């Protein structure tokens, strides 16, 4: 299959799980195009300003929680340079809705797309992938849509997980293909939980992409009223979540997840 990986900020795109996902897709025999948005100098200046603030915040949270930051470690090679070494095609654009991005996709004639930390995909682009666009969302759908969903799950004493879903024009509203629970153990921090979510995503996304090429995948439409869209959590609440984890106040600490978590039906939590 011809698969486009959508990501953003090529100069800073260094997370291991993205590289692992791309490597698996390549090993499975897919042809890849890595299409980046937010690749302009201005985008990167904004990223630096945002990321520095975020890193400072995370460090201060870690200090407060008495944890380590090892969960956030990643290799120094960007996904873009890794792709270049393997002759994977690359395309750079500032926004996904600009004409250049649309033309690049159209020229390449992809079968499917995978989002690896990408911007929202504009509705008209979604029709350019006959096998669909899939995303690994770091929360359990349909209950947790949007941002910081692992944090919100811990805040609400709900299970943490990963949901792979088809992308539609909404925010995390597409049909759910698979859900996996993530165990939360003593000593975990938000960073270690997120790292675990990334590892699970890197393992299951290539499997699902391979299935896209064959029979129609079974996916369950979401009942939007069964969940909420969440937004970025306020720093004071984030600190509380870290405190909750560090103090083992999260109700599901050390709870063994449901052995059949990936069933797409029903609601967890």
């Amino acid at each position, binding site marked *: 299959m011809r698969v486009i990986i959508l990501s953003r900020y090529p100069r800073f795109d260094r997370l291991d799980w993205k590289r692992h996902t791309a490597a698996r897709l390549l090993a499975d025999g897919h042809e890849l195009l890595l299409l980046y948005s937010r690749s302009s100098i201005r985008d990167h200046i904004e990223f630096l300003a945002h990321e520095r603030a975020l890193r400072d915040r995370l460090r201060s949270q870690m200090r407060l929680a008495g944890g380590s930051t090892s969960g956030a470690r990643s290799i120094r090679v960007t996904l873009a340079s890794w792709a270049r070494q393997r002759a994977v095609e690359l395309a750079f654009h500032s926004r996904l809705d600009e004409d250049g991005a649309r033309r690049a996709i159209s020229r390449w004639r992809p079968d499917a797309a995978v989002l690896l930390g990408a911007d929202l995909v504009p509705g008209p682009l979604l029709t350019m992938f006959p096998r669909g666009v899939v995303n690994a969302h770091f929360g359990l759908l349909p209950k947790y849509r949007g941002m910081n969903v692992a944090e919100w799950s811990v*805040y609400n004493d709900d299970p943490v997980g990963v949901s792979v879903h088809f992308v539609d024009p909404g925010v995390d509203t597409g049909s759910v293909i698979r859900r996996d629970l993530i165990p939360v153990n003593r000593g975990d921090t938000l960073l270690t939980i997120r790292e675990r979510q990334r590892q699970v995503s890197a393992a299951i996304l290539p499997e699902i992409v391979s299935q896209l090429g064959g029979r129609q995948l079974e996916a369950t439409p979401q009942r939007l009223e069964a969940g909420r869209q969440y*937004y970025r*959590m306020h720093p004071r609440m984030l600190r*509380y979540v870290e405190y909750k984890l560090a103090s083992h106040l999260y109700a599901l600490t050390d709870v063994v997840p449901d052995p059949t978590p990936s069933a797409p039906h029903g609601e967890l939590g």
Partner: protein
Amino acid sequence: MTTRPGPVLGGAVVGARDAGRRLARRNVVNRSARKSGDLESAISWLCRTHDVTGRQGSSKGFSLTAGWLPAYPETTGYLIETFLKCGQYAAVSSLRGRAIELGEWEMRVQRRDGGVIEGTVGDLVDRPVVFNSGMVLHGYLDLHQAGVPGFYDAASLTARWLAAGIRPDGTWPPDVEYHAMPHTYNSRVAWALLRWSRVANDTTAADGARRQLGWVLSRQHANGWFTSCTFKPGQDPSTHAIAYTLRGLLEAYLLTQDDAYIGAVITTSERLMKEFEIRGALLACYDSEWRATTTYTCLTGLAQLARIWLQISRITDDPRFLSAGLKLTDQVAFYQERLAWTAVHGALPGSFPVWGRYAPFQYPNWATKFLADLLLYRAEITSDWP
């Protein structure tokens, strides 16, 4: 009543600073702005609004073009609550004394029929208006419920004047309305009447309040936007007027447990919260499709909305409103004045930038009142956080 170094120089400094802040950001307010806010300096400034009138009511605020403004009965009325609550929170008895003085002044300027005049005492307009009367009724009730004797009769007079004027459809006649039009923000007046009905067992007031609230609900669109949520005909609703409307409905829900009221509050708040979370800021006015129609921000309205969102989070247990309320509080607090100039230090401007069309070049006393209420409420709900 001007204060050195003088409004003109001060206005130039504040204007230049706001112009710089605006240039530094593409959006109208600083999305990552975060300041904790200073309740003490806000209260000190509010005390100054009382002192500069010779303790005859609270000045409408400080203008960068005209200096201190005359006392304003409407906002003096709801400032009483702020002084009482902050006095209790910080155990400062002088604030309770000030609240009593404000109430006594209100009684001195109260009309014989119980109504409260439009505008400031300097305007010489002897026309009673509904909203101002409702806000002063809150003040009388706050004092009465705080155990201060002598305010029941004044409250009764104002409440009876308000209740007698409500028409069968829940609105008041144009001659007692600001700009001769009905306003959804009179839900705050209905809230005052509901409070009064509890104190005095006055079913006429309660019935009138319910009719008014029913009318307010009838003005809400499916997307949460309100018709008639403006101060003047032909305007788009401002966050200030929307927040007034929502607060009245919210408090009415707490008094009556009528789910229709909280449902309406949540519908509008969800829409505004989404706008705030996605765009990072709220502008001053919105059309019926929730498109921003201004390029400035009404800081007064934001302070009110933040308080409402924090309150919703407690009522509904929806933590998204807690997070959004805290973020909006950070944003508003960023604009609390920190200039070492006593005329404005601790105050909140009406708009950002200061020349925005809502109270341009002014620090209205109610903007700082709502900031103080917000900071106090945040302190209360986060007091046991680790």
